[in-house]
């Protein structure tokens, strides 16, 4: 396996769309890097450029110690797993796996040995004689993986390989890919729009937006320290709550005010960088899992509580997801708009309506014993370390 380096990569399509802009990534030997982002963020285009299926407009791609920009796909020594698997429908599973080896003019016994080894690794031994159309979705997925593995390439490229599977199977195959990747120590670039896949699979995750890299970090860092509103809103489910807020100081402590309500900042949240924002507007972000029904946390201090009105209650058994209205204007930065639009055009319309009403809908993941009912007023506690602050103009995280 080899290291893959992408430097200042750019792609502009002939009709003028700029799909990727100045993208630099380094994928270490044996590392799995996930490219994630909403549709149209350039992740698949990037992958196809690495594969050689799409020409680069600028920048260089290096696999191992070779610059491969001008090499055709067949000379790049990489394997790709396609979203629709792209199995050869007229060939059996065995022939599908053997095809890349046959083209490399390997000897018959060697081909047979490698095909059977890959088949064993993926549990495909009993299916070698079947045609792709006689296989289930999960089996086809495995064959596609097998065809990639059998070649022992420099790197694996995976283009949303799980998106055609149903939810249960997806979870299972995700674990399978994880296991294989660790076992083979395979350098892998994995493209997905599913942030759960990104978080669970990636050694590191690169989040793209409109062809530009937003942040590249470990999943945990991405979750804990999102570099801007876009990253914060994209990672995590349900998504982070955002509200327009103002920083101030009372009794020597920093506090944040949204609408008529205030929260006192905990030591873990009070960064020196925030001093500069006192008296200025900013964006406050709180993840749903860091909110709790105050009735379940009797010991929580009053200055970490705020009130809302319950709109929707979704019981999940282990927890209750509660949507509640808070009297404060929502933030409608470009980032937030795009995040909403990635969900649906209707989601954006909802946001715009909320802004006119000066209401923000928060989502909280409360304990299963919460009594919060639709239409009721609810008091909510923000856990320590829950508050994230972003610049209202640039959307950037206020760090330090």
């Amino acid at each position, binding site marked *: 396996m080899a290291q893959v380096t992408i430097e200042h990569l750019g792609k502009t399509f002939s009709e003028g769309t700029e799909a990727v802009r100045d993208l630099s990534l380094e994928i270490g030997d044996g590392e799995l890097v996930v490219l994630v982002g909403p549709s149209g963020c350039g992740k698949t285009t990037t992958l196809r450029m690495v*594969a*050689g*299926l799409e020409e680069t407009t600028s920048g260089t791609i290096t696999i191992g110690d070779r610059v491969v920009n001008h090499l*055709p*796909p*067949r000379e*790049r020594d*990489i*394997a*790709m797993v*396609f*979203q*629709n698997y*792209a*199995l*050869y*429908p*007229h060939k059996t599973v065995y022939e599908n796996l053997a*095809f*890349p080896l046959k*083209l*490399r003019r390997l000897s018959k016994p060697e081909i047979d040995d490698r095909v059977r080894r890959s088949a064993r690794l993926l549990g495909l031994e009993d299916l070698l004689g079947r045609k792709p159309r006689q296989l289930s979705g999960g089996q086809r997925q495995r064959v596609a993986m097998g*065809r990639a593995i059998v*070649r022992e390439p420099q790197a694996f490229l995976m283009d949303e390989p799980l998106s055609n599977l149903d939810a249960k199977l997806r979870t299972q195959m995700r674990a399978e890919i994880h296991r294989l990747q660790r076992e083979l120590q395979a350098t892998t670039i994995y493209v997905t729009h599913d942030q759960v896949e990104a978080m669970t699979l990636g050694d590191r995750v690169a989040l793209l937006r409109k062809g530009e890299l937003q942040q590249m970090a470990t999943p945990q860092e991405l979750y804990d320290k999102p570099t801007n509103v876009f990253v914060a809103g994209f990672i995590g489910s349900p998504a982070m709550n955002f509200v327009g807020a103002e920083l101030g100081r009372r009794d020597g402590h920093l506090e944040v005010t949204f609408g008529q309500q205030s929260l006192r900042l905990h030591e873990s949240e009070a960064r020196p960088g925030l001093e500069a924002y006192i008296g200025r507007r900013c964006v406050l972000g709180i993840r749903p899992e860091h909110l709790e029904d105050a009735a379940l946390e009797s010991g929580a201090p009053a200055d970490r509580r705020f009130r809302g009105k319950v709109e929707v209650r979704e019981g999940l058994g282990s927890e209750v997801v509660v949507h509640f209205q808070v009297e404060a204007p929502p933030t409608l930065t470009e980032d937030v708009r795009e995040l909403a639009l990635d969900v649906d055009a209707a989601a954006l319309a909802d946001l715009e309506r909320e802004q006119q009403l000066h209401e923000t809908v928060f989502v909280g993941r409360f304990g299963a014993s919460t009594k919060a009912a639709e239409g009721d007023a609810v008091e909510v506690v923000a856990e320590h370390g829950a508050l994230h602050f972003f610049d209202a103009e640039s959307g950037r995280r206020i760090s330090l």
Partner: protein
Amino acid sequence: MALGADATRRRLSQTASSWVDRHFRWLLVSPAVVLILALTIFPLGYAIWVAFVTYDFNIPGHAWRGIDNFKEVVTDPNARKAIATTAWLATAAVAIELVIGLLLALAMVRPFRGRRWLIPIFLLPLFMSPVIVGQFWALLLTEPFGPTNWLLGAISGSDVNIRWTTQTPWAYFSILLADAWQWTPFMFVILLAGLSAIPDDLYSAADLDGARPRQAFFFVTLPLLLPVMLVAVAFRVIDAAKIFDVIYVLTKGGPGTDTYTASYYLYEQGFQLFHLGRGTAGAWMFMILLSVVSYWLVRRLLKPVEA
């Protein structure tokens, strides 16, 4: 009384309407049934009878001949030659159409400027009557007024005097030319549809697997196109075996009997020589032969589709 008559009338109209209700579907299909009976079943039955009797415009009466009509056709060297000519002309025509159609389809499968206009133009010959096609090739080829010889002469710089429709190898060439000109678009459009149905990702996968374009063609395109290709070939072979119009217009079966096909031979027997009994017997045999060949073709050629 008046009341009773009224009730009777009502009952009568009720039975009538319920009869109509119950049999309405038959009323609806009856015109079609009558039409099929008159135009297909009756002529077919009549033709069986004709094949076994003397049915000749020059000979009065319809004496029973048993299988003599059939014997005469089978022993006629012209009939045998016509079958052979039909076989090889149909094979050659379909082969030419397949190759050119495939090349055209390969060239046109990727979008390019003007493709939207080019495809309908390519398909135009398909919509023309074969008689018209034969006629305009006759106008183009036949000396002394056809421009073909003049054009070839101008290109080669010497006099060209090919008798396109009355000289032996050239008459075949003319027929193949006219048939291919008309039917290549058929192959083209079916193969184009077949090619468009092959997902792009398969070519990407083949490319990454290490296949060169030529290998991708032989290992991906051809096997995936094969079922469609076989269907198109089966259709065309069956159709080409019945070729008549172009020959009637271009060569009239000549020179001599060189371009007699089965259809042309039967036409001559029936409507030039007025041996309708013999012609009908031949037509029956040809139909059975063609059915057997078609059945074999369809079974044999379509097998890979099922596998």
